[in-house]
């Protein structure tokens, strides 16, 4: 399916970098010459509380903003989004569009029979990736979990290029960046995990790349095609 706009909802928990992931995706799309907007939604900043972010990528100017009620892609950053209902909706996939994709960070399947059936009825494909394990393996820290989520959605939909992601990551982490007290201290925490900032960039990028490959392969094998483009030209 080729759509004029791809709406991505990222459901995570505070501290996992869902906000950063959406911003990096939008920055990358912007670098690729597409139109994009990203914004987060969260309550008082606290770890492990539900936090969502949204990234819209398209081929024409985007006005729509705020919570994504009808997404094409939902990314679940943490199993508790599903198992503990740490989501702004119940179930977490409410509003997903037909032909959409659900990406879940979990080593084990988490969906009930009912969920599986409802998603199937909507022709929604589900992709599991053990993102946190992958982050620990490649980057050496679970704080890079959001990189696996970026790689997954990019690998499946090709909505942003790897070059643009590289540039966006450098822009985001390569310079001093103040978002808020909470984000700043998280930035500091992650920087301490790496000897050098360059190492952080390199390892994050490697994590994105690996997730991109895994997701890409899965999409090809399962014939999942969800792209941003001009449907009229494609037809």
């Amino acid at each position, binding site marked *: 399916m080729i759509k004029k706009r791809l709406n991505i909802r990222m459901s995570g928990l505070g501290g996992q970098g869902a906000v950063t992931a959406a911003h990096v995706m939008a*920055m990358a799309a*912007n670098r690729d010459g597409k139109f994009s907007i990203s914004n987060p939604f969260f309550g008082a900043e606290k770890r492990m509380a539900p936090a969502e972010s949204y990234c819209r990528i398209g081929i024409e100017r985007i006005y*729509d*903003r705020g919570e994504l*009620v009808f997404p094409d892609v939902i990314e679940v950053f943490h199993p508790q989004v599903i198992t503990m209902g740490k989501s702004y909706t119940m179930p977490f996939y*409410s509003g997903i569009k037909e032909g959409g994709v659900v990406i879940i960070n979990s080593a084990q399947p988490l969906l009930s029979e009912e969920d599986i059936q409802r998603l199937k009825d909507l022709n929604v494909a589900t992709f599991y990736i053990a993102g946190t394990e992958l982050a620990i393996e490649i980057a050496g820290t679970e704080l890079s979990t959001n990189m696996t989520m970026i790689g997954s959605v990019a690998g499946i939909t090709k909505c942003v290029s790897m070059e643009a992601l590289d540039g966006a990551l450098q822009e985001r982490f390569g310079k001093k960046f103040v978002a*808020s007290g909470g984000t700043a201290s998280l930035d500091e925490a992650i920087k301490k995990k790496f000897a050098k900032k360059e190492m952080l960039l390199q390892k994050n990028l490697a994590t994105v790349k690996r997730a991109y490959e895994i997701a890409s392969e899965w999409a090809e094998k399962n014939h999942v095609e969800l792209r941003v483009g001009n449907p009229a030209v494609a037809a």
Partner: protein
Amino acid sequence: MAETHSVIGTKNKKGQTYTDTWKMMNEAPRTPSFYTGSEVIKEAIRRASCDVMIAYPITPQSEAAALIGELFAEGYIGDYFRGESEFAVMSQCAGAAFGGARVFTTTAGPGTMRAMENFPMWAGARLPIQMIVTCRGINSPLSIQPDTLEIAYLLNTGMLVWHAETAQDFFDWILKGYMVSEEPDVHLPLALCCDGFFVTHTKDVVNLTPADMCLPPYDPYRSPVPCMDMECPPVRMMRDPFVMKSNYISYATHASWQQEIWAAVERSRKHSIKWLNGLIDAENTDAEIMIVASGTAVSQGREAIRLLEDEGVRCGLVKVKTLRPWPEEEIREATKNAKHIFVPEFNVTGWLAKEIKATIPNHHRVHAGPHVCGGMTMPPEIIVSEIKTALGMKTFSLAGRGS
């Protein structure tokens, strides 16, 4: 702008060139940048030649306040400090403005409400302070999400009240806002509002003016009220406050001064029209269906219009840029052909719809809605659904969140 001792063309201590504001905003090259709204506020203030910023970092405005703290550290702002509460901040802003400084501050939601006493005082004292209001919910249960109810409370303070749709509006209007506010025949504070999160936390493309150009500094001698001179009429309010009701003159002075504040709001009209290119933007005003909105509701309206177009329904749009001064004539003219006027709003009371109903003939044409509140998002689909329902068209039930 006729200035006898012009600083235009000279440099400030950061090496920025004081530039004629009209040239800076309309002729200087622009650089597209991908920024959050908060970062854009910082970039505007970098170029605004601000003397003082006072901050009380109530969320979600904390990013802008923190980022402007960085600007101070870099030397772009004369002075910067934090107040102990929003009320204190707004009072301190008054003090700085009384002293002849160009003042900037930000607030949101409950902070705006707590500081409310100061806003009519600012207007009455004719202080051209600029306050960014990144609207959020004000009621209990507490919410930090966007809700525009607080704007309703600002409308009768005597401040100028503008409602930005995007971060681009924000960047331009912060700088232009000082030009309107500081005109001698206006000289009023400006509440520059946006919907929190949807503008402040959203990354979007914004075209910035060159960082080495800045506004000419504020000239306090253009104030209609002598700076730091509370003894001098017409605002001799310290030693001989009108509240004492000492004689008929104090009654008369107070009454006439209130009229003068609102006359100044009216006089801001011509300057706002010049700087903002009109108090409203209007598109397809020949359509029978119109959306009239301000802030983020305009953006959501634009998306709804696209969806309606796909279904063969033509719909026009009015973007209300200034709420004070209120664009009465403009709205009347832009909606004269409309049979149905929809007013989507991010608050529960529908204050914009009420203003419009009080403005136009045949106000039964106004459909107040859809409304979302308490920080909810307004998907364009619900605007479409509201319009189609009112027109008697078939709509499908929206399988939204929670279904």
